[in-house]
């Protein structure tokens, strides 16, 4: 386990940062994004300028305004944040498919297998920060460590725009002086109990004898001691059980060329298929989402007789919807996306006649592609259609 390399990527003051991105005149000003004070709303994000006045997220908006009367109060624009979040996650997923979202602006990445392709964990963290800044214009803080709890802790140490690496050898040096509140999952009650026994730092907790700690924290004692030792074997779990799995992409410039759109769509289908395979699921419904440059958004879907998960089968279903749309609509697209739903376990009870033939062959191909992508990141292997297009941008026949 010591070999793992985990990243925790945390966007800085995410909602406030998106507001500043969209309205540059807000830069440098104290911002409170959240519910209105009249509606007894709470702060979702306070910009760093507002935090200087003691404003924090989850604080009632009225209380925050009392502390910082000059703050500009902005409503939450959830769809806009989700759009930016999708772009952030797309960047993260270009380094490894092992991305576990914690929330809209925060994720763990297991880059253990990506290092051969992209360099060390620290190098990958630097690249991720660079791309988020270049392509989106936002900053992120990244922690790099051998496990999740250390990575999360590290990302918090030098916020904003931080990059902190904790190596296995540094664990005690870094952890010991930190307050126990930094331990992931230790709530106010636990912190209060520890304080009563004058245990303020992680180092103090770590060196306390086992029985004493058990008397203070009960059955959770063992878990927290392991965290204090820098031990956390929890794996990065890419997807939690979802009702649907999807992928979409907003283009920097509208795309009209059908083959270019097909190439994007195919990559999205491959991505979605991989996530299905990882969860051993199959899907019955395939939905395409298409947005025109005037922001009109349409969805088209097809429901199949039985759940499918083989990439080629999913692609055929998506391609059929796309072609039906293309046959009567030829408007440039601003966004295209594919979602699969009506998910069912892939180990269908209905047995198949052709287990030994095409199905097996196709499933085996999928497994091989998944394996390579899992180990080296999504760009490492591509179907020929998407590959050629990326290489030279020509409109070759698929």
């Amino acid at each position: 386990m010591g070999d793992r390399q985990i990243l925790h990527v945390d966007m800085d003051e995410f909602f406030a940062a998106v507001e500043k991105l969209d309205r540059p005149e807000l830069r440098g000003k104290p911002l409170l994004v959240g519910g209105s004070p009249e509606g007894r709303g709470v702060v979702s994000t306070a910009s760093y300028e507002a935090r200087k006045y003691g404003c924090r997220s989850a604080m009632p908006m009225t209380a925050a305004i009392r502390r910082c009367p000059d703050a500009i109060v902005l409503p939450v624009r959830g769809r806009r944040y989700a759009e930016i979040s999708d772009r952030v996650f797309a960047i993260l997923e270009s380094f490894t498919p092992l991305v576990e979202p914690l929330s809209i602006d925060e994720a763990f990445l297991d880059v253990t297998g990506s290092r051969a392709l992209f360099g060390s964990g620290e190098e990958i963290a630097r690249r991720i920060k660079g791309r988020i800044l270049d392509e989106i214009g936002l900053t992120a803080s990244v922690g790099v460590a051998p496990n999740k709890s250390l990575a999360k802790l590290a990302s918090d140490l030098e916020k904003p725009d931080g990059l902190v690496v904790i190596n296995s050898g540094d664990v005690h040096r870094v952890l010991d002086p930190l307050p126990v509140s930094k331990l992931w999952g230790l709530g106010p009650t636990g912190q209060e109990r520890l304080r009563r026994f004058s245990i303020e730092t992680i180092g103090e907790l770590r060196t306390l004898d086992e029985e004493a700690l058990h008397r203070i924290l009960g059955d959770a004692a063992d878990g927290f001691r392991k965290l204090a030792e820098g031990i956390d074997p929890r794996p990065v779990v890419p997807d939690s059980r979802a009702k649907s799995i999807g992928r979409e992409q907003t283009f920097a410039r509208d795309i009209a060329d059908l083959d270019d759109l097909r190439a994007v769509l195919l990559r999205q289908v491959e991505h979605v298929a991989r996530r299905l395979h990882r969860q051993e699921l199959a899907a019955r419904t395939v939905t395409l989402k298409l947005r025109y440059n005037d922001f009109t958004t349409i969805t088209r879907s097809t429901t199949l007789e039985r759940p499918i998960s083989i990439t080629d089968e999913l692609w055929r279903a998506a391609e059929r919807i796309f072609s039906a749309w293309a046959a009567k609509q030829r408007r440039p697209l601003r966004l295209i996306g594919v979602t699969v739903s009506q998910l069912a376990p892939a180990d269908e009870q209905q047995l198949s006649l052709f287990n030994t033939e095409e199905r097996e062959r196709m499933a085996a191909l999928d497994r091989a592609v998944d394996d390579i992508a899992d180990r080296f990141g999504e760009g490492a292997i591509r179907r020929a259609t998407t590959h050629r297009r990326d290489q030279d941008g020509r409109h070759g026949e698929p």
Partner: protein
Amino acid sequence: MKLTCETKALADSLSLVASVVPTRSPRPILSNLKLVASDGTLEILATDLEVAIRRVLPDVTVEEPGEVLLPAAQASNITREAPAQSISLSTEDQTCTIAYTGATYDLPCDNPEDFPDIPTFNEKNAVEVEAAELKKMIGRTKFAAASEQARFALNGILFALDGDSLRLVATDGRRLALAEGKATNKANISADPIMPTKAMDLLDRLMEDPEEQVQVELAENQVLAQSRAGTVCTRLVEGHFPNYEEVIPKDSDKTLKIAGTKLLSAIRRAALITTDESRSIRFALQKDALTVNTQTLEGRRASVEADSVSYEGEPLKIAFNPDFFSEMLRVIGDEEVEVRFLDSTSAALARVGSDYQYVVMPVQLQES
């Protein structure tokens, strides 16, 4: 063009041909039917560029030969609703007038020259099959083809010709239907094109006289089939048909014999309580007895004993999707069916007479 004909005959023909017209198409011209009138007959054509049909309507009084494009939906609605015995069509400039006693419709029309060419039949390479036989073979296979297009090569019917033996095969990957028949194959052609199910459906509907010989021309990438009532021309489904002979079980050692209607009745009665989530039916087989059991997640259970059963072999429990059996049993009518089994996870093979085999994979049994 100017003609008069019997309303019902025209309405039936128009609606058959109109079923080929694509609902949405990049080429608006395809929403038309093409009508060609010449000495005593009217030809009605339509295509979706995949499948084309030419219906020949005899007994038409043609005063002036000619051709016209009619919007498919309107033309077939107008004729279907017409209460009169006979109906007349005439064209002047770019307008077609449909008239019967008490009603007149003027329809502006597209130029017939813009309509895509539809290949014509070439008798040289044709094989012949008796209509009654081909109809039976199509009926016994087409329901087993996949109706979705996610698995290509399976959403069509294999038309395998070898000497004078013809096999139609259809499968959706979970069951497979194989019907065998005879063809007159003077040119000794060997071929095994995959025909779209839609084309086979149209051919089925074009075979009006069971005793006539249907001619089938197998060309490089298309097939034309012609009966007296018309011609179907279809592009072939691309791809390889799976190796179907390999999945026909050969080592089954348990045999059930029962009249098709009796098995269908037992399955239908047992399935009355099932839901979409728990649809499977379970056969419990022992010496000369078959019980069909169902059970749902909500706790409903049914147990139905089939009538007049012969069963030889070790007792067996095996579960199926009921549709896979009932769809097959519905097309064989009251013929006797023999079903052979090996075990609860291997394909069952149903045989009817000497010319129909149907393979169906079971559903994995959950022990309860």
